[in-house]
């Protein structure tokens, strides 16, 4: 079953590049490879262009596609990290409250920033929303982690129940913000509760990519420690790993990454569940391989979902969260039915 990792990575990369190109080509305005080449040369030479197609490509399509790819990578890597931390394959940022908490934090700013007037806006500028998203996401995740833990073990049942409760609280908080908001804000909050890449711009792409790279680098450095964590917290300690430090580091880095992405694109569920699951089947559970594989696979999968969102009902656009949930929920149920489903499938994995 397990592919030789020698082939897996080149294969994943080829898939990602193809999906990236197709995503750019397809859309309300279709962009050919030749347009891309021209636009990029113009852009590289610093020339202004008056071609509409080129502007659409540089200003709209490319940032959208890149933001989508990076977000997909982030959500999947986050799934891997959370699952490692909670020692359970059914955990993902949507389930443990990170995304919903981040959405609440972000919508809070969305509604109240205008009340406080422009001063705050000037002070922290475009970082205000991501910052509040981070705070919201961290609080929600910490609550779920603390409440679901008993005797240093995370019980699956309490994890699910606490997760449901915290998600409900965060969701109703966001609902309340919608209620307070004036009409145009309210519309964008609710749209963004389901996730969208409509407003993608280069600032978002840069910030999200930077955070993603830092977190991926840090977690790859800790890949061995995450592996040991699979044995159990105490056991990892016996193997020389400072588990408290590891948990703190992963929790904060991961929340920052997810919260920032969420603050720009809204809540996109189930990515962190499907991708790590599939990648575990392909490359195994060793985080040294699982993390980069999930990054590539997640980017490609969310791009495909986004193409669905843009094209299925074109010219209208479906919120992308609806698509990922439609596909993800059944996978989630499958995983729940068997923790044993994964267990029994193992067999001879050569």
């Amino acid at each position, binding site marked *: 079953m397990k592919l030789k990792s020698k082939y897996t990575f080149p294969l994943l990369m080829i898939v990602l590049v193809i999906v990236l190109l197709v995503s750019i080509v397809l859309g309300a305005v279709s962009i050919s490879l030749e347009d891309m080449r021209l636009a990029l040369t113009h852009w590289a030479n610093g020339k202004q262009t008056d071609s509409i197609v080129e502007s659409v490509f540089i200003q709209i399509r490319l940032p959208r596609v890149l933001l989508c790819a990076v977000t997909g990578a982030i959500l999947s890597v986050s799934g891997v990290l959370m699952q490692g931390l909670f020692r359970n394959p059914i955990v993902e940022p949507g389930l443990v409250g990170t995304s919903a908490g981040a959405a609440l934090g972000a919508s809070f700013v969305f509604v109240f920033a205008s009340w406080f007037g422009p001063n705050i806006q000037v002070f922290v500028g475009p970082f205000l929303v991501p910052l509040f998203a981070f705070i919201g996401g961290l609080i929600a995740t910490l609550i779920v982690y603390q409440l679901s833990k008993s005797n240093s073990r995370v019980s699956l049942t309490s994890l699910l129940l606490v997760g449901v409760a915290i998600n409900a609280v965060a969701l109703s908080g966001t609902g309340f913000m919608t209620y307070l908001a004036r009409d145009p804000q309210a519309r964008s909050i609710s749209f963004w509760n389901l996730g969208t890449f409509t407003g993608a711009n280069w600032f978002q792409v840069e910030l999200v990519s930077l955070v993603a790279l830092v977190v991926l680098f840090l977690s790859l*450095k800790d890949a061995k420690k995450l592996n040991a964590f699979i044995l159990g917290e*105490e056991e990892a300690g*016996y193997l*020389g790993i*400072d588990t408290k430090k590891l948990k703190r580091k992963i929790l904060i880095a991961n929340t920052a990454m997810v919260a920032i992405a969420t603050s720009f694109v809204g809540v996109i569920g189930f990515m962190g569940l499907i991708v790590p699951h599939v990648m575990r089947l392909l490359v195994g559970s060793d985080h040294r391989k699982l993390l980069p594989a999930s990054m590539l696979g997640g980017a490609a999968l969310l791009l495909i979902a986004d193409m669905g969102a843009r094209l299925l009902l074109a010219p209208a656009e479906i919120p992308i969260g609806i698509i990922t949930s439609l596909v993800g929920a059944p996978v989630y149920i499958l995983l729940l039915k068997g923790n044993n489903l*994964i267990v029994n499938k*193992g*067999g001879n*994995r*050569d």
Partner: protein
Amino acid sequence: MINIENLSYKIQGKYLIQNIDCNISANELVVIMGANGAGKTTLLKMMSGSLLASNGTLLVDQKLIQSYSTQALSQKRAVLSQHYEISFPLSAREIIMMGRYPFFQSNPHEKDRAIVEEVLIQMEINHLADRNYQTLSGGEAQKVQMGRVLAQMKGGINQNKYLLLDEPVSHLDIKFQYQLLEIASAIKNEQTSVIAVLHDLNLALKFADRILFMKDGSIVHEHHKSEQIDVTVIKNVFGVDASIIELPELNRQWVCF
């Protein structure tokens, strides 16, 4: 190697370990026995450094155990626990490689790989090397975990080391119970000691250099290899009547219940 003085461990007002004194030297296989809830696992966890004393001191090589870093301790002792719960598919070989984690940064050295292969052969689990750990039987899984701690005991810096085994034979068939304890007693040497919790008194009598009998958090009796086992001790510790059969041709005693 390990010096324990007046050691106590208290949780929620209840003493799980009370005023224990004992010393464990290199080249010794010490077995801890006692009824359920006597504090065996707690004592083992204190020796592993994962539980810290409420009172008293526990010295490893003349230094307080809490003065060692997690990393330093991991190169000095290995621990086999009673239960493992693993929710992700990992091969047996990957699990055993974890025993080498204290000794390399992010990628295993050639030596680490060699040790893993050596352990696979030693534990007779070569055929399980690429199997998913989650599909192994209880006994097979236990052998893999034992392989992991064996890998952790090998190589590294030249220093005193000790191995802690909590009920290492609970899932094993008779042949492997003996084999595992033979392996355990083979690693003890001038620089290494082994401390194991066992439930089978006859197994303990065969392999142990010393048996510590625990009751209600204290060590109530110490049995040395050459001595005659005392039925009143067994009655006191386990609450059962026993009789001893001498097996002069094997130079052993056999305890019947």
